């Protein structure tokens, strides 16, 4: 096979694979713009008339609007807390000759392998006991804990990348260790903090099991739960569901696609331990 033909072959294969990957999403996107009456009539596959009726329904739906607020608040707070707690823990793990360092990191990573189903019942009982059910806190705390292992792991890798000299210089200037972390290392590791934040925000945004269990009303319901429970009393409202799916997917999509280079670098460094 000639080089040119082989290139063409690989281009065509890639294009087909990309089309297959995008198809479920594109179909949902097309569906969200189809008027209700045309939904179950195929062909035509493309909308003959583009309509925003489903988006109007979905955005006027109080439960979903509220769920977007809940998800944004819960995930933002959990992410910031995880970055704070994670950066503190990552500092000695990355920058000092700590005894049992590998054991610490292995233990922290091991925590992320625990199936959530093993945690959910004791957490549920604890949350009931504390009267936290159906509050933001009932999700913020577990999300903080669940994203902490990956956060520590990634931030350790990022902090380790920084040159030792900056730290030494600051220490000679009489800077405390907390000051070194806060004023010197974290600003230098800002891209790493940011990509870590993006990754865990998206994981938390998409979490379903705990959100389903610990929420009961619009007061704390997050978007995956609101979408799973989206009202369909007589028939499944496919058009509204499609529009709702697109709306709740926009924040994670924008974050991952907008910052995909950073996310890729973060995961490669953190998971494979390589730059």
């Amino acid at each position: 096979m000639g080089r040119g033909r082989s290139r063409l072959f690989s281009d065509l294969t890639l294009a087909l694979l990309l089309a297959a990957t995008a198809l479920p999403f594109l179909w949902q996107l097309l569906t969200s713009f189809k008027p209700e009456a045309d939904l179950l009539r195929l062909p035509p596959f493309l909308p003959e008339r583009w309509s925003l009726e489903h988006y109007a329904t979905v955005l006027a739906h109080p439960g979903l609007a509220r769920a977007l607020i809940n998800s944004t608040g819960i995930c933002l707070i959990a992410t910031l807390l995880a970055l704070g707690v994670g950066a503190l823990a990552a500092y000695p793990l990355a920058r000092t000759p700590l005894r049992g360092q590998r054991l610490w990191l292995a233990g922290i990573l091991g925590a992320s392998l625990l199936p959530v189903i093993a945690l959910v019942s004791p957490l549920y009982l604890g949350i009931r006991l504390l009267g936290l059910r159906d509050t933001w806190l009932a999700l913020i705390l577990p999300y903080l804990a669940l994203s902490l292992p990956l956060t520590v792991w990634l931030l350790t890798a990022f902090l380790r990348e920084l040159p030792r000299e900056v730290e030494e210089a600051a220490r000679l200037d009489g800077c405390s260790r907390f000051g070194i972390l806060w004023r010197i290392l974290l600003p230098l590791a800002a891209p790493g903090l940011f990509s870590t934040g993006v990754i865990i925000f998206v994981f938390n945004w998409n979490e379903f099991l705990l959100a389903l269990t610990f929420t009961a009303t619009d007061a704390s319901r997050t978007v995956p739960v609101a979408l799973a429970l989206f009202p369909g009393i007589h028939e499944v409202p496919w058009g509204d569901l499609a529009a709702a799916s697109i709306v709740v997917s926009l924040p994670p999509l924008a974050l991952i696609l907008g910052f995909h280079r950073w996310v890729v670098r973060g995961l490669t460094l953190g998971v494979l331990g390589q730059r």
Partner: protein
Amino acid sequence: MTRRPGAWPFLLPAVVVLGAIQLYPTLAVFWLSLERRIPVFEVAEFVGLANYRFLLEDPRFWQALGTTAYFTVVSVGLELLWGGGIALLLHRRRRLRGLLLAGFLLPWALPGVVSAKMFEWLLYPDGGLVNSLLGAAGGPAGINWLGDPAWAIHAVILADAWRTTPFVLLLVLAGLELIPHEVHEAAAVDGAGRWRGFVHVTLPLLAPVLGVALLIRTIDALRVFDVIYVLTGGGPAGTTETLTVYAYRTFFGTLQFGYGAALAVATLLAALILAGGYLRLVAPATRPAAEGA
């Protein structure tokens, strides 16, 4: 630099959070599995190993275990082939690569619930895209994909693999970048041929990365919940009910916290055994991120 005693103030918050919200519940679930516990009615009595004795003779448990194993093996296999294949194709190109990569990553950003809703609509028997295309092509009409036990498990596998393949793609692509360029070229010069070069040169060098991807994805597939809960709810006739879905329904459907805990412990043990097995296989070949800088 001498060892400083003061790492604890920095580690303490993380240790408290992980201890209270990961370690404590994991230990508590073992205790819970030794009880008959129905929270709403305030029933709590110690019953020893009764829940485990029941579990061993519970056909629904064995079916869920089998379903979980099948789901895990098929979906991870699919992800490796699909994600690895795309990575190999993407690896050699420079033009438009960022854009293509972003396109392939798209499903990974979506919530599992969204993936489930998308496939539910694609597979809708009367008027969904798949059956309409089949009909137009003169294929069989009106297959009830999610209602037929033979199809339903594969539908949920597809919905899950679609969303998780990009993760495997990312790792394999990163692994390929780590292999020095000369190695690929040397193999080509030796006239090893594409396929033999791949099997004898690329694949062994890629093994550690494949191991890590396999470990992470296997553990993740083992605890799958959202796609199945939303797409089939475990049906039809329990054929898509995995361990996590069964345990969840035991907890929050029938409120049997004791037996649910026994099921959760079984899931936990399965994850630990698999992780332990993988680490034995993979660890010697991997340069872990934990290695000193």
